[in-house]
């Protein structure tokens, strides 16, 4: 292949474009971080860098159960939903990758359909269902929809990973005396571990970032997750907007995302593209 040559002019052009794109993406985030370090009085100060740095907003949100409890909910619900989704998705994906069975294409189609379905359209019916089933404002009330919407993503990502594992390994395990379940657990699953980790990260991020279900299916902090809880922050009086604490909470829950993405960047990209290119 011929090397793509770039003139200094082109390089400069690309540099400017990249800078603009990154700036557009980062400025709101940096603005939020900046706000979280400003004192309540300086919130309306238009300067980008706080004139007076303070941890006050963080102290405030972390000292009340209004944020700490939802944070625990977020972590708990996210982890449980992720585990359940990955276990079910890996079993389904394995079947899809390996077996021929009637209704396979229907299953794949349904999974895709669920992934495509506008969630907002489901909120009202699900709200009614959850209320009559007694799931409203409970952990399972959020875990179940998160699993439902995490599964299609998981099935797609994992079946791409399973397809890349040589079938002969499974045959070898069978001849070695393994039952199909043992072959899956002892041979196939360990090899698909990178795929499972990727899927888990993607599903967890989806749960962590969700606002729609969290605000719709909860009513108290006993099950409200962090993004929804920020809605209910109150200012020092009813006439002040709690801008600082909200900015602090938003910055706080963004940290795990940034850490995740930095650590697992390659994995996430692999997971998102594996089905597209190789599958």
């Amino acid at each position, binding site marked *: 292949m011929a090397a793509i040559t770039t003139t200094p002019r082109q390089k400069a052009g690309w540099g400017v474009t990249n800078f603009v794109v990154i700036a557009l993406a980062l400025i709101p985030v940096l603005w939020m971080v900046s706000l979280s370090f400003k004192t309540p009085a300086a919130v309306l100060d238009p300067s980008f860098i706080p004139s007076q740095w303070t941890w006050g907003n963080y102290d405030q949100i972390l000292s009340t159960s209004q944020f700490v409890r939802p944070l625990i909910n977020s972590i708990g619900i996210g982890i449980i939903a992720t585990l359940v989704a990955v276990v079910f998705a890996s079993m389904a994906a394995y079947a899809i990758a390996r077996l021929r069975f009637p209704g396979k294409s229907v299953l794949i189609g349904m999974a895709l359909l669920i992934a495509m379905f506008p969630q907002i359209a489901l909120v009202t019916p699900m709200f009614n269902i959850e209320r009559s089933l007694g799931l409203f404002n409970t952990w399972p009330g959020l875990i179940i929809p998160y699993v439902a919407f995490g599964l299609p993503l998981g099935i797609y990502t994992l079946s791409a990973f399973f397809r890349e594992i*040589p079938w*002969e*390994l499974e*045959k*070898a*395990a*069978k*001849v*070695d*005396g*393994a*039952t199909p379940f*043992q072959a899956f657990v*002892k*041979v196939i699953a*360990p*090899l698909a571990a990178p795929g499972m980790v990727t899927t888990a990260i993607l599903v967890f991020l989806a749960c962590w970032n969700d606002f729609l279900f969290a605000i719709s299916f909860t009513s108290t902090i006993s099950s409200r997750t962090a993004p929804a809880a920020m809605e209910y922050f109150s200012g020092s009086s009813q006439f002040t907007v709690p801008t600082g604490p909200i900015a602090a909470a938003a910055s706080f829950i963004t940290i795990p995302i940034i850490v995740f993405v930095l650590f697992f960047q390659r994995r996430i990209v692999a997971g998102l593209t594996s089905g597209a290119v190789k599958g």
Partner: protein
Amino acid sequence: MAEIILDHITKRYPDGALAVEDFTMDIADGEFVILVGPSGCGKSTTLNMIAGLEDITSGELRIGGQVVNQKSPKDRDIAMVFQSYALYPHMTVRENMGFALKLAKTPKDVINQKVEEAARILDLTQHLDRRPANLSGGQRQRVAMGRAIVRDPAAFLMDEPLSNLDAKLRVQTRTEISRLQRRLGTTTVYVTHDQTEAMTLGDRVAVMRTGVLQQVASPKELYETPVNLFVAGFIGSPSMNFLSGTLEDGKLRTSLGDFALSERLRREVESEGTGREVIVGVRPENFEDASLVSPDNRPNGITFHASIDVLESLGSDVFVYFTRGRDQGVNSAELEELAQDSGRGDAGGTGDTIVARLDAATRIREGHDAELWIDGRQMHVFDPASGRNLSLAVSREGDGAAIRAVSPASGTAEPPAASETGSGQPVSGGAGEAT
């Protein structure tokens, strides 16, 4: 240890494709049997059916006297070596080899002892705690073998275990497998598409073509008395030369010269009812430099002249290649299939290049005309329609040589290529002309 009996085994896929048809074979306890054939002939499918990795459509499979058609692989007590080795990448060599025993809930110390014993036999002791990714191809192959032998199974099934090794290692490993099998005395079924492996390893070789078993015999028998064109062309390297021949006045007329037919063979050819056209098969080693043939031996064959296109000297032997310009070549579905399998069809090589293996003492030179002798006693005559070896039926009846040379004089009466270029004269550019 067990015998394996395949009783009219047939495999038909749900889409109707027939992979294996009516395969019947008894494999004795401790026997080393090779399934050989070109790709797509159903040999691996047969092996997978024995392993239990594919369902048997009809027929009965018995291992050690028990019908195992419905048994899952784990209940058949067989070990398998795969072409890709199929080592578990996340386990060490020790864990790979002990996996089957661990699943069988064998006590840990017994597993360790067996794995170490196998590792010692296979020279893997210092690699026991490494992972397959860090091993060379040959070492991986040995781990795959080790995984099979630690189990002490009723039978070993091997699916082209050497095809991923380089040529030198393949020969070395081949002898090792042979030695190992003799030492363990375990019934072994070995699948390969390489006829050299088939000939060197097996007690018996089963040749398959398009799902049908062609012939089961010892390597020697297969080589000397192939039942049909396909087996004749598949077994032997370089492969048998095929010429078209015509039956005329009790003689077999070929582009190399005329051969007298025995009465029986003539009747056999005529009774087949496919007319007077036959295909004549001659192995490369049945040619010789005419000047090196003793006068006593000469009457057993005929001599002819040919212009040598290519000469390959291997030290121990000399291979010469020449073409018979006049020959139309032979047409047969079986030969076409063989040509495709060996890549000859795609390479654009003509089917009528003849290969002869001569004594290293020969003075024949490339590009020159040479007088060659052909042993008439070793020729095979095939029916072009059915591919059946007609000379076989005759020679089995104890008639001796099926074909004799007409006579030394008349044998040389028709030196086709040479007569066109000037007999006996060194021909410059003969190679070019012959092609």
